[in-house]
């Protein structure tokens, strides 16, 4: 819709026309201004991100020329010898984020449904409010909580339980030292769940009440209403919250590095230690003084950007493919 189009019917007020008509003329001047303002804001995001990517590209030049595509498939990360390969970090990043989303997604949406549909309004608001607070806990503290609380809990109870039932499966095999890809995934779950819960709950609450009542009037049970009417209505918002969450999981640094074991190795087991791109950058950037080393770390950041790009793309394709509504935006 072109700004201004809607008002052509109102015509132009003549000079000497009543105050209201003149004011609406002035008001209409606001339209292109406002449009321009919002467009500028949206465009500025493209500019900033483009600038950021450019910086990443420029500062990783040395490493890119040195290693070429080998960077992506090499498993050798040796700062002393000047050999750098990204594969273990790519692997760790993808696995921890996958674990995080697969658990946090249903958990968060389930909680949001409960809070939006079943809980009494006051309780729901209060709990949502408190859940938001979780988002403010500094990453470092999540890391400390991870080491002091989560790791003992996992080694003492959760992991032995899983291993006694499914220990023969390769992904649950191996000795568990507390710090692992799985532990990092769980910490990420706690860190990202508040976003999913908070946004999904608000989105569910804004589904117009008429939709629900229509569904009930047709004889649906509460759950059927939620599943067939409310959720589809809220789908966009929930997907948005999951995208935001996925991004956060991919880029999380402090908490992950404290519980993942920081070992650049690819293992088939979830219970083995690993390493993510964000964690290695956070760990080694402050100490790296050698130019090749620095540029290799920046190249890792560029690789992460590319991974985020691809995952976002795949997720959007999946959503478009499974949605018939022609109006869906992703």
């Amino acid at each position, binding site marked *: 819709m072109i700004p201004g189009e809607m008002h052509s019917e109102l015509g132009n007020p003549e000079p000497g026309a009543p105050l209201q008509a003149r004011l609406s003329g002035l008001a209409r001047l606001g339209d292109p201004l406002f449009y321009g303002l919002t467009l500028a804001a949206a465009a500025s995001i493209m500019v900033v991100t483009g600038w950021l990517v450019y910086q990443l590209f420029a500062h990783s030049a040395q490493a890119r020329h040195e290693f070429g595509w080998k960077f992506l498939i090499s498993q050798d*990360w040796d*700062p*002393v010898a000047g050999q750098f390969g990204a594969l273990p970090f790519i692997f760790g990043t993808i696995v921890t984020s996958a674990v995080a989303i697969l658990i946090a997604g249903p958990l968060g949406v389930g909680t949001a449904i409960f809070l939006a549909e079943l809980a009494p309004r006051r309780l729901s608001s209060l709990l949502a409010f408190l859940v938001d607070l979780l988002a403010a806990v500094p990453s470092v503290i999540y890391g400390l909580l991870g*080491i002091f609380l989560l790791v003992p809990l996992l080694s003492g109870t959760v992991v032995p339980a899983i291993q006694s039932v499914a220990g023969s499966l390769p992904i649950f095999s191996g000795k568990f030292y507390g*710090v692992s890809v799985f532990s990092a995934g769980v910490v990420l779950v706690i860190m990202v769940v508040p976003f999913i819960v908070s946004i999904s709950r608000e989105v569910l609450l804004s589904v117009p009440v008429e939709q629900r009542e229509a569904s009930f009037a047709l004889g649906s049970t509460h759950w059927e209403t939620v599943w067939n009417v409310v959720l589809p209505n809220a789908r966009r918002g929930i997907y948005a919250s999951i995208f935001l969450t996925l991004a956060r999981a991919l880029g999380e640094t402090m908490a992950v590095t404290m519980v993942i074991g920081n070992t650049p190795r690819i293992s088939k087991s979830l219970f083995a*230690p690993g390493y993510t791109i964000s964690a290695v950058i956070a760990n*080694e950037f*402050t100490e790296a*003084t*050698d130019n090749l080393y620095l540029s290799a770390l920046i190249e890792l950041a560029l690789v992460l950007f590319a991974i985020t790009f691809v995952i976002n793309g795949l997720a959007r394709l999946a959503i478009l493919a499974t949605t018939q509504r022609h109006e869906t935006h992703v």
Partner: protein
Amino acid sequence: MTRSKQVLILAVLAGTMAAGAGAGATAVTGAGATFPYPMYSKWFDTYHKIHPDIEINYQSIGSGGGIRQITEGTVDFGASDGPMNDTLIKAFKDKRGCNILHFPTVMGGVVPTYNVPGVREEIEFTPQTLAGIFLGTITMWNDPAIRKANPGTTLPASDIVVMHRSDGSGTTYIWTDYLSKVSKQWKDKVGVGTSVKWPVGLGGKGNEGVSGLVRQTPNSIGYVELIYAVQTKLPYGCVQNAAGKFIKADLKSVTAAAAGAATTMPDDFRVSITNAPGDDAYPIASFTWLLVPDQIEDSAKRQAIVDFLKWMLGDGQKMTGALEYAPLPKEVVEKELQAIEKIRG
């Protein structure tokens, strides 16, 4: 916007703008090593009490960070647990147009900490056993080499779980520097650095990461700074020095390690004292340095830094023992006082 909201916002803005005493004070910024952070923060706070018009703000962002920031000129001085190598010194000169000076401040040690259930005695490590454990060639606690060094102790037949630092750090630099000196295999395979490619083991972030992992993992071994081990009451073992004696790290043994270096100290103070000679010397010890440009334009800052350095070499050294850092040998102090004269405008 409601009236009360406006007032609130104005109040907050006013508060944030106003919050700041220290108008007229000389503000000096420094960045770098985490290893001496407790000592430095004590020094700078004490110095501020003595000279309220001088505020020295030091942040421990890591030795590498310190080197980078001083080269870029975003801070007035840097600090590093490992001396700058020739490439870095040249880079500094190219970028800033003057030379960088190294000033040793204190010494500290790195100790092997472990968690072996059932073993109450101190474990004694030879250079070969330490290198072997961290290389992954020695895998069990009851390995013959370890048992030989600990005749009276019953060691379990368990796998050794190795913990190391994941974040780049001066502590790792000192540890790997020592291992490179005592083990050719380590030197060839891994080398020295603030971050290295560890043959075995899990990575913990920071001293507390490593000590936390060691504490929670039976049959594990890691390395941490001496003061960290002392403050958090971690058990740590003795290491055999170049003279063949098993030494437990403490102020005396760390100071002894520097004694040999004192007389042969190079003019630029860049020296490694790991595996130092001497009967009482603790083998895994090191200086830590302040990095100061020899040309500082701002005369107030220059004077502040020069005065601080002189104070640090005098009264400052008397405060080190209380925090478990070893003070500098007298000869080194003398030499540094002379070197301070090199700082010009």
